[in-house]
């Protein structure tokens, strides 16, 4: 259903939830999942929450809150709120099915298969996701206290699962890479437009993506308004959010780097280990892209946001600097598939999320759970997140990398292979899976007005 083609994003930031278009950049977070047993009390609870939900309105200097809160609903959650069948049916198929049902498409097989997920993340109980982000642990706890008191007061609102997350002391994710450098810029989002964050245009410049790619009810890259569920007001200013808990095998990864460097170059010289790590990812651990500095890490590049994302792969068609199969090149091929980028710009994702667990100090595995809370935002889960996951991460056929999967996060099984174009050592063999899925779900994150109306039961069948 088409809402309005000419809508301007900037005028509606107050109705869009926060942390979608702009990252909060807060070091700690808590993700709480609730099950709703009764539509009416669930709506009342949601109503209380909606008053404190953080919007996308930009903070002025010194105005940044100490904590924020956002709310999203899974398809089961919308059902639990008592929405009528016609409304439910107007949501996209993949959202209705939920993440576990889409495991084949996502490559969630083997140890990542839904039957191996954490019990609490397996069932149908993840109705509502409440995210709290905070500047400090204290602020996080105090916000949580409020949430708990409100929830305990509500009948039939049950906590199913809570996941905490915090940036490790290294400031990196657990494999040691600075994360989250590249994000799509969005037209009308009032974010500074950094080079490399939008879609490449022919003049060598970059253009922000159109808002319909990330928020429902706006014009997308196809020139049409993104499709929304009915009624249109329910969808307007909302979007879809993918939540995944990704466990990282840090000790295995470090071990793999050493043994593979040994196999490739007959040395476990740290420089070679770092080069190998960079080849897998496409960036050095600092975040400095291989495309700009193929032979050694360069902190000056890494720390300069005007430079560190300003590259395309078009000048490196064979992947001699950044391998075609490297993680960042797969996840965002930029201008390398065709000059005008038509093959890429409809498959972009906004990534939010944070690492969880303690930094691994020892060489061997300590058995602790650590990894990444992965959050992807987009107006179509199937066209964006699922497509990237299936076609680019786990297939790579489009890049002529038949049979090769993403070396970093792909569903490899110990027989994986990666092509490293260059003067010597053309391949890495025997890739295993370094990242496994522990659970996840698809959520709909409504606009603030829509959230209030949902809470009021305006669209519910029983009210």
């Amino acid at each position: 259903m088409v809402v309005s083609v000419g809508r301007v994003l900037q005028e509606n930031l107050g109705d869009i939830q926060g942390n979608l278009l702009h990252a909060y950049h807060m070091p700690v977070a808590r993700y709480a999942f609730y099950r709703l047993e009764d539509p009416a009390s669930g709506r009342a609870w949601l109503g209380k929450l909606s008053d404190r939900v953080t919007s996308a309105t930009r903070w002025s200097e010194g105005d940044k809150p100490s904590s924020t809160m956002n709310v999203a609903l899974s398809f089961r959650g919308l059902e639990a709120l008592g929405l009528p069948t016609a409304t439910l049916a107007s949501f996209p198929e993949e959202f209705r099915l939920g993440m576990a049902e889409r495991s084949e498409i996502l490559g969630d097989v083997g140890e990542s298969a839904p039957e191996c997920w954490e019990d609490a993340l397996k069932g149908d109980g993840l109705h509502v996701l409440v995210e709290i982000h905070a500047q400090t642990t204290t602020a996080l706890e105090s916000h949580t206290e409020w949430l708990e008191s409100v929830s305990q007061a509500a009948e039939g609102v049950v906590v199913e699962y809570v996941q905490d997350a915090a940036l490790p002391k290294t400031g990196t994710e657990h494999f040691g890479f600075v994360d989250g450098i590249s994000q799509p810029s969005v037209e009308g989002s009032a974010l500074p437009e950094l080079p490399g964050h939008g879609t490449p245009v022919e003049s060598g410049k970059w253009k922000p993506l159109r808002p319909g790619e990330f928020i429902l009810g706006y014009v997308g890259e196809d020139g049409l308004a993104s499709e929304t569920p009915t009624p249109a007001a329910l969808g307007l200013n909302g979007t879809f959010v993918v939540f995944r808990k990704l466990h990282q095998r840090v000790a295995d990864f470090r071990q793999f780097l050493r043994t593979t460097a040994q196999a490739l170059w007959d040395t476990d010289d740290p420089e070679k280990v770092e080069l190998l790590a960079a080849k897998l990812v496409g960036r050095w651990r600092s975040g400095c892209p291989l495309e700009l500095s193929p032979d050694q890490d360069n902190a000056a590049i890494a720390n300069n946001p005007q430079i560190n994302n300003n590259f395309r792969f078009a000048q490196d068609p064979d992947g001699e600097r950044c391998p075609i199969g490297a993680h960042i090149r797969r996840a965002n091929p930029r201008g390398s598939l065709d000059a005008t980028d038509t093959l890429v710009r409809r498959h972009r994702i906004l990534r939010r999320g944070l690492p969880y667990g303690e930094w691994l100090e020892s060489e061997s595995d300590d058995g602790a759970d650590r990894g990444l809370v992965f959050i992807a935002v987009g107006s179509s889960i199937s066209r964006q997140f699922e497509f990237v996951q299936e076609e680019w991460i786990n297939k790579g056929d489009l890049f002529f990398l038949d049979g090769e999967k993403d070396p970093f996060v792909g569903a490899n099984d110990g027989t994986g292979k990666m092509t490293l174009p260059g003067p010597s050592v053309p391949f890495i063999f025997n890739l295993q899976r370094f990242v496994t899925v522990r659970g996840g779900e698809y959520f709909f994150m409504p606009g603030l007005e829509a959230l209030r109306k949902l809470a009021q039961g305006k669209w519910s069948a029983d009210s």
Partner: protein
Amino acid sequence: MSPSAESGSPYENITEMTLLTPIKDGEADELAQVLAAVQIAEDSPIKKISTIHYARWVILDEGARLLFTSNFDGTWEKYLRDFSEKIPEGLDAIWGHCVGWPGAQPFAPFRKWVDRHQVPANLFYAAYPESTVREVQRALDWKEKTERFVAELAKPPRSS
């Protein structure tokens, strides 16, 4: 026409599509010219869809209807989306001459139109059903390079 998005392909990775669509009265000649122009163009618009192995358009029954067949990798749905998103103008220029054409965009009515006119094959044969277009192209590239390498080793030094 059987209202089914079902492919007649028995293979897991390859899908076949056969579409039979009536041509608008008196527009067959113009359509033939459009197709001829695409045929002699340097670059086919179809190339943009990297999952198509073979495709053809054929005008049947003295201009009464247009046949389209192709073999492609992946699912029907994704293939149609590719069509709709990557070469909408091309499709409009061709199928615009057919009765009831809703336009390649937006997607939903296009999908419905295709669905309505599709006939699943009763028998479909593929010689290398497990290979995608990219895999084929990649393998051909390997072969060419390997051949050159092996031959370089074999070549006697030229006397001249």
